[in-house]
């Protein structure tokens, strides 16, 4: 089965700024793919490239077996797109918006739409401009889900919404999980942990990883090593000699060393750590929640880029 979304070396430059660089990912059909990353990491740019709102500077993207740069007209019948920044026709009432959208979609499910309207408690006769942000997002959701699209693309859909609205929207998405592929970007790591089957992490336009949630959880471990005596503080340097590159966010506190193992593959990884610390009094491996994984990765990336900048400055200064 072809993936619902596939990108290869996708890049987007705005002048000299690379918003996205060499992004390759695949989203299997039926997956709930969460794209995470800090502000300005390139999440919205990637989504806009997938939706043919922007044109790529490099690479390619295929969405539902079609070249994303040719996505138009009928190609959107199978795609439901909602963005936090989307400009809706605010002069319309909720009812008019749904009535207007319906004829565009041959598979519009009137009953499902009515159920969503009821579930979201949407006032059909109110103009969109008179609604709160949360209500407008609900209306946008109904208009994007009512035709049971094969692919649902959501750009920061829950940003700034109260928890109740968020849960309602997530429930409506879960109702379509399985029959639709869902691709969403989000800041909120806690909520996507319960929702996503796949996850991708963007950092400064680069995709650091893209994989199934279960694999991700399995390969990250928070490792705590207790030694008989205190070690040098230099050991926490990311480039400290002797520390494998798969160990990140290394922290030293007296005789205790903590780091995140990013390629934890059971006994082999345990053996590797044990060999690195033969005098260790104890070594503890803790599974990590998604939030902790991302924080560790983000911190590690930041340290690496600072180090790279420092090295570059040093090279410049050296006669």
């Amino acid at each position, binding site marked *: 089965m072809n993936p619902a979304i596939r990108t290869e070396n996708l890049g987007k430059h705005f002048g000299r700024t690379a918003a996205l660089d060499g992004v390759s990912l695949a989203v299997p059909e039926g997956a709930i793919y969460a794209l995470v990353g800090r502000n300005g990491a390139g999440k919205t740019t990637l989504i806009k490239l997938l939706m043919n709102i922007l044109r790529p500077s490099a690479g390619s993207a295929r969405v539902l077996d079609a070249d994303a740069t040719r996505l138009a007209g009928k190609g959107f019948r199978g795609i439901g797109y909602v963005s936090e920044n989307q*400009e809706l026709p605010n002069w319309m009432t909720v009812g008019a918006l749904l009535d207007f959208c319906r004829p565009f979609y041959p598979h519009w499910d009137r009953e499902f739409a009515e159920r969503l309207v009821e579930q979201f408690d949407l006032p059909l006769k109110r103009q969109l401009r008179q609604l709160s942000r949360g209500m407008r997002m609900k209306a946008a959701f109904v208009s994007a889900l009512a035709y049971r699209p094969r692919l649902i693309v959501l750009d920061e859909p829950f940003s700034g919404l109260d928890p109740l609205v968020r849960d309602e929207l997530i429930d409506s998405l879960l109702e379509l999980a399985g029959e639709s592929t869902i691709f969403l970007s989000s800041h909120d790591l806690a909520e996507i942990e319960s929702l996503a089957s796949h996850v991708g992490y963007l950092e400064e336009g680069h995709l650091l990883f893209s994989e199934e949630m279960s694999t991700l959880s399995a390969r990250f471990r928070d490792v705590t090593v207790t030694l008989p005596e205190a070690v040098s503080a230099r050991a926490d340097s990311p480039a400290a000699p002797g520390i494998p590159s798969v160990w990140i966010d290394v922290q030293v506190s007296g005789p205790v060393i903590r780091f995140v193992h990013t390629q934890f593959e059971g006994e082999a990884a345990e053996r590797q750590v044990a060999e690195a610390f033969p005098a260790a009094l104890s070594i503890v491996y803790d599974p990590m929640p998604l939030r902790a994984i991302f924080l560790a990765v983000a911190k590690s990336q930041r340290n690496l880029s600072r180090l790279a900048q420092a090295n570059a400055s040093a090279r410049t200064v050296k006669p």
Partner: protein
Amino acid sequence: MKQILHIFSKDVRRLWIETLLSLAAAALFAWVTPKSWQSGPILLQNPYQEIAGLVYLLLPLSWGLLIARLIHGEVMVGDRQFWITRPYEWPKLLAAKALFVAVFIYLPFLSMEAAILLEAGFNPLSYIPGLLYRLLLISLVFFPLIGLASVTSNLVRMALTILSIFAAYIIALSTLAFRHNGNSIGVSFSPAAAGGNVTVAVVLLVCSAVIVLQYARRRVLVARLLLGSAPILVFLTSWVCNTSLSVDRNYSPAAQTDASVIRMIPFEQDGERRAAAHIWGSSGNGNFSNIDSKKWAVIKISLRASGVAAGDRWQLDAFRPALTPANGAALKLNWQPGQQVFDTPDDSNALSYKTLDFVIPRADFERLKSSQLTLRLDFALTQARSARSWQFPLTKGDFMIPDLASCSAIDNREQGVLHISGVFCRFPLRMPPLTTVTALQTRGPCELAPAQPGDPSLPTSISIGDFGTAPASFGISMEQGQLLNNTIFGSSTSDPKIVPIRLCPGTPVVVTQYRKVRAVQTGVTIENFRLGD
């Protein structure tokens, strides 16, 4: 088709206020325009004229507003619009917008024009080609507006862009006016003045390309650049069409032996007649009164025509001077506008010289003024011949000249005696082919018998129209013009020695319409010409 109608009906629901405003403006214009036509006594104020003036402004504004709101309903600029990730098919979206413009702008415009024609006494069905051609011409307003709306994100930005374009246009005009351009001064920059159909085609094509590009691909930057190039293309078209290329194409050289072509006789070559000559034409700097005399020198040439056949009329459309000194470089100018008419048969008792004036750079004048020069003048002439004529007694009030105009005589009463101070006419969709109107003015009060041919009276004559072949001109409503004007001593005077000259009711009026016979180039060479003469 379903999607087209679906989007169309959405736009109708959304824009009902703007649409009603636009339709009301069109209806008001159709109603008030005939009422604003000048008629009746001269001193009677016509209150409808001010209303018509206001509606004349309101109408294009309402169209602009409607077009902007329509196109911005599915705005093409930006990446946050709801509709761009919906199954809109661009040809259908564009068709829906086109349908809206056709139904709520073009159709009302057509109806408004037809209603005004009808009110003026013309059957609109007889003017269908003209009405359709006028729709094409009014697209010169609508297409750029649609194009602009498609490259702007909202009404305010569009309005600011229009204002900027007007400002740039005014600056360009003021910069180009009276700037030396090769060997000619002044550059015509109006689509009507130059380029004609080519300019219309350029504007419509560029705007269409912008609109299609935006709807098909939303390439805002490219579309903006393309739209920005339109004025440059129009300027280039006008320039190309205004230069000698246009004259050389449209005026065929006449053989020197062709006796049917009038002979232009410069004052310098007129021998003994010079003493009896009467020169009509500009005095002082004439057409160049605002010129900087430190940079430019005005040269005047007086000439008359010989060989004008009775009933013929020769228009000097353009002339091209070249001054060649015995030693040194020749000064060759481009075609200059002529604006003179020769319609008097050769008559030694009625020698009438007319003046052609042109400018040359002051530096060239200083270089050439002391030299013996050879002046070569090329002429572009149009020969016209009387084709139709109407004769009727001048009456007070409104009257029709069949197939030509709907007219109103403006009457005036002086010491209880009625006379006509002018005749204003409305012409269907365009000015008529070249038409001359002649009437005799009575010397003395109008209670005397009206002037008759042979009376000791003064003729008054006005020419109107041109030889354009287009069935309509650019604009809204009827073309208007003055056919007769009683101005010579027509105003009241308390000096009893001055006998007023009047256009009196009952005076025979002769309207002659000309047809173009041919356009020819001819020329004359003046040896031993001196600039100081």
